[in-house]
């Protein structure tokens, strides 16, 4: 239901159970975080297809690769930060280089980490995963898209990094919505000559809210949601640059290496235009209320709207 608040991690856990009959080769590996990442639902429903790996992410990735080499489709579900950084070499060599169909659920992606602070926030995972050849990166916006992308990821022949967040987020898609791999989704058409907001994951609901604030002021902003960060929908990015002329990117991630960086890399070569990247600056997160931290960095509807407004007025992110 639109606007209903649901945690993507829960939608992922439910989707695994829902799609288990469809994919008899699917198994789940858990480095002792299943009650957090919600694969405990799968554990309860399919205990014989659930492997408790203990607190050992590196081994879990290798085991998943071995299972995948024998025809299984393993999901390794863990905190995003401990997949993308602690188990990076295993993901790189045993998964990305082999191209085996190991599926990674980077749960607790971005900031919302249960007030976990610097060690548990995962604001570098998109950068790290983007650098791996052959890795598909999915960043669903809400529970509807998380469910659909869980199925989509399981169906894909190669490795996938699905990023799910911990906190409840508003539902922005109706139940019939089906994401297309590698294609951005238009959330607000906007009008030519105004700003485009390009967002990923849970930031897309905030981008829409920002666009609606701006629409009331007469600024018609295009909003594109990137449920796939890699492969990036370069056509949609370039079209936004050509048609809108100015772009704001918004991500629950560091501004280094994530969606904003991917957009800038593409535009620098294909359609240069003014871009403002909203995300976390080059700092570690700290403990505290998620909402306050997001707001500190302008990652709420008001902050996004303000950035778009300044850009539309021809000014930069600081108003200069």
């Amino acid at each position, binding site marked *: 239901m639109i606007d209903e608040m649901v945690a993507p991690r829960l939608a992922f856990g439910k989707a695994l159970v829902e799609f288990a009959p469809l994919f008899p080769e699917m*198994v789940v590996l858990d480095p002792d975080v299943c009650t957090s990442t919600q694969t405990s639902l799968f554990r309860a429903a399919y205990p*014989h297809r659930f*492997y408790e*790996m*203990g607190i*050992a992410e*590196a*081994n*879990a*990735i*290798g*085991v*998943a*690769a*071995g*299972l*995948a*080499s*024998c*025809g*299984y489709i*393993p999901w390794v579900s863990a905190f995003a930060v401990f997949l993308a950084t602690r188990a990076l*070499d*295993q993901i*790189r*060599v*045993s998964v990305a*280089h*082999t*191209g085996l169909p190991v599926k990674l659920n980077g749960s607790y992606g971005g900031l919302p980490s249960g007030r976990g602070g610097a060690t548990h926030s995962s604001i570098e995972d998109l950068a790290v995963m983007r650098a791996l050849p052959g890795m598909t990166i999915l960043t669903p916006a809400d529970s509807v898209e998380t469910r659909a992308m869980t199925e989509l990821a399981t169906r894909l022949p190669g490795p996938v990094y699905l990023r799910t967040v911990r906190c409840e987020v508003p539902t922005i898609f109706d139940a019939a919505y089906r994401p297309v791999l590698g294609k951005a989704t238009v959330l607000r058409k906007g009008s030519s000559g105004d700003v485009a907001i390009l967002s990923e994951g849970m930031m897309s609901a905030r981008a829409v809210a920002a666009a609606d604030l701006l629409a009331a002021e007469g600024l018609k902003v295009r909003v594109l949601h990137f449920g796939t960060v890699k492969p990036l929908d370069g056509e949609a990015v370039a079209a936004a640059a050509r048609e809108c002329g100015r772009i704001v990117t918004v991500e629950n991630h560091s501004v280094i290496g994530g969606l904003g960086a991917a957009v800038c890399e593409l535009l620098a070569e294909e359609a240069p235009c003014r871009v403002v990247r909203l995300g976390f600056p080059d700092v570690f997160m700290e403990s505290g209320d998620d909402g306050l931290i997001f707001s500190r960095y302008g990652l709420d509807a008001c902050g996004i709207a303000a950035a778009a407004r300044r850009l539309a007025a021809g000014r930069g992110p600081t108003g200069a």
Partner: protein
Amino acid sequence: MSPEAGKSPDYGIPALKAKALELRRLILETTHRAGMGHTGGSLSEADILIALYFRILRSIEAADPAKPTRDRFILSKGHASPGFYAALALRGYFPLEELSSFDSLGSRLQAHPDMLTCPGVDISTGSLGQGLSCGIGMALAAQANPALASFATFVLLGDGELQEGQVWEAALFAGARKLPRLVAIIDANSVQLASTTADAVGLEPLGAKWRSFGWACIEVDGHDMEGLCGALEKARADSSGGPVAVIARTVKGKGVSFMEGRYEWHGKAPNDAEFAAAMKELAL
């Protein structure tokens, strides 16, 4: 020679010893020609590879390298690829002549084994410490799927490699689960890249470590072909009740006097004079 399905060719111990000598010569030819490659660790694993590929591994077929019921083999010490490639070539996975392409642009024989290019490679390796985890995944697959239930998984690790923490994550997991049909073979040549293992980070008592992680453990002279075959056959049989570690005591650079026990030969290829001298020592 086309090996019968489901069964390794019927080689006696003298024939296996002759194959091991041939393998050592191929290793030296391969690294000498390439001007690089890991000679020392390939020579130490040579007898183990011959025992596996000509006696122990079941249902492997060069003509059907992806056969689902085949025994699996993982070279976790992936840098010792010259030995692995030579064994695969001897077993018929690709022509012996292809060894001359080792480590060159476009070759199927990459510096480290690549499952996407080289027939007979069950999983890619090269970053030390990862192979045993992959082997556990294969053993779990065999355990979960009745159609695969017959195969065993053999993982060859270096002793220096055991300094990687992931190995012990894997050992702990397999031991705790009493995971069947998984055999880890340690090529315990006591020498790593820049020193002896004792001078780097000592590993002994090695057998006690594996046993304390819940594994059965067999120690054997890794160059005594008869003892080695016996140990590996016993390991395969005993692994029905849980994982088995075979600690094969070996000599780095085995067979070439001036390479034996020397860390300097970890990642080095012989020059022309060294090659000639080595081949003389390994004369057929």
